[in-house]
């Protein structure tokens, strides 16, 4: 790549301010040495840099620093505050639902383990009622 090509590449990548160029290329940035075409590219890059410098933005750094400082200085949240109260994170309600579901499944297992026989048979119902009343032995 010739010096002129490199110069144009630098102008198109970093603009006209030599301080923004990689250090090893900064020696190329003397507009007095530019040929007419490079000078035109440099002028265009400079106009764009001037426009970009018009982007003025608000500064709330000290306010933010103060707020963050207060946050980290606050006493640590209790278990309830941290996990149970703020159910705003999307995964937290899911966790609660999963726990309820697990509890339901576990309870259902326990019910089956108790020997309960699920039946809609009419005769079975009569026998269970009789067993309950003590009329017959199981």
């Amino acid at each position: 790549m010739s010096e002129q090509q490199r110069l144009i590449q630098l102008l198109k990548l970093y603009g006209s301010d030599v301080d923004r160029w990689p250090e090893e290329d900064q020696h190329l940035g003397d507009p007095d040495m530019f040929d007419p075409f490079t000078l035109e590219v440099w002028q265009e890059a400079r106009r764009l840099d001037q426009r970009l410098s018009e982007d003025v933005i608000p500064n709330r750094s000290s306010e933010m620093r103060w707020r963050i400082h207060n946050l980290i200085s606050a006493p640590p949240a209790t278990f309830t505050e941290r996990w149970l109260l703020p159910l705003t994170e999307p995964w937290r309600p899911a966790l609660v639902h999963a726990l309820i579901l697990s509890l339901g499944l576990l309870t259902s297992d326990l019910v089956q383990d108790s020997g309960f026989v699920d039946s809609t048979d009419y005769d079975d119902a009569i026998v269970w009622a009789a067993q309950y009343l003590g009329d017959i032995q199981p």
Partner: protein
Amino acid sequence: MDERVRGTMDRQKEEAALVKRVSSHDADAFNELMLRFLPMIERYTFRLCRSTEITEDVVQETFLRLWQGADRYDPAKATLSTWLHRIAHNLCMDLFRKHQRLSPLPDDWEGELSDSTVNGTDNANTPQSAFEQHRKTAQVAEALDALPERQRSVLLLSYFQGFSNQEIGTIHDLSIAAVESLLARARRNLTKRLL
């Protein structure tokens, strides 16, 4: 060794030491890092999302992550500034995805402009010059916002934040050639819009 390179290395070592102190919840070290890095993270975030509210949330979350997860920072992989910019960038992208598109300028923009400003001189002495400054800022903001997300972010990191192409590559997981290509396209697009 070059004086400037040595200075940079000393600064990075010092920052790594401060991060180590932050990992054991040293508030003084944390405040020192906020003083050094919060303004630049704020500027980057604001230019990326153009919303005061979101900027505040992202900056706060970025520094809370530093406070809570300082031990995850590896100075061998990136400078602290690069690491923090990467966190802020990812948070912004998450919010972009959540809200799709953010408004280009906050409603209270004009009011904020009369406060202290970060760049340029605040010469808004008359309503007319304030209006003119507002108009110019809005034009540049609009042109920056119109850029595709990656072009915008790469340009902001290079032009406004002063990162090298290698550091930008680390933030975005891109090769240097890809960063250069995005940078050139961003400036070309801005030239078309603003000149």
